[in-house]
């Protein structure tokens, strides 16, 4: 059970993170990435093709043309300006989170994230 003081300080920590440029940029880039019409079409086509691939895997009836199309879609998505922008913003945000975890862990004497993630005790 977290005590009230820790809860208040955790809320303050979240407020600072939410107001950081890194989180603002990450959130804005995420919205753009998720709502771009061209990217949406590419992602939908990719999902459809991936399902077809799974179905055809057993019969080994995947054509070279389909493989090429899949690769082209993958490239189209990952190199799309919105996707590049999102990946960069995400990396910067994760870097900030890692810095916070380092600061937390230095005070605690052990890795906060690794311990808070642990499914069972050591």
């Amino acid at each position, binding site marked *: *059970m*977290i*005590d009230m*003081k*820790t*809860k208040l*300080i*955790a*809320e*303050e*920590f*979240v*407020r*600072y*993170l*939410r107001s*950081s*440029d*890194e*989180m603002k940029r990450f959130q804005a880039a995420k919205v753009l990435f998720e709502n771009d019409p061209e990217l949406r079409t590419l992602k939908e086509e990719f999902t459809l093709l991936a399902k077809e691939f799974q179905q055809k895997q057993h019969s080994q009836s995947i054509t070279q043309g389909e493989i090429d199309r899949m690769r082209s879609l993958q490239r189209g998505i990952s190199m799309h300006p919105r996707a590049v922008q999102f990946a960069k913003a995400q990396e910067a945000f*994760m870097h*900030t*989170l*890692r*810095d*916070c*975890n380092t*600061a*937390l*862990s*230095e*005070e*605690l004497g*052990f*890795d*906060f*994230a*690794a*311990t*808070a*993630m*642990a499914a069972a*005790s*050591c």
Partner: protein
Amino acid sequence: MAQSIETARGTTTSPAIEASRRLARSITASPPFQRFQQAHRQLEQDPPAKELLSEFQQAQQIIQMMSSWGGAATEESQQLERLRQQLLANVTLKELLQAQDDLVEMLQEVNVFVSEKLGVDFATLTKPAGGCC
């Protein structure tokens, strides 16, 4: 980093980093953390318990290695179980394990609390490969 400030230690940091440190200090002042530290101090003063814990951890490592090679032998598994029973019967180690479980539970709660308000899982996004307390 946005809105950087200078700390007494002379390193450049941000308000979020300072807030991280305040959060950590609040955790270290909490009863579960204090109990865990006390249990650790108790272990340091109890050499037989330390030896038993070390033996148990070694047996655990052997089982893990053997599992990764394709399955642990029955003899090793039985030895680990024997050590586990001894460990649970030891007052110092029992207290340490309970204190550790309580502390981990609290840290998980802090992570859930922070993650829900952030909208992303803090520990998952920052977790390094491996490591524990």
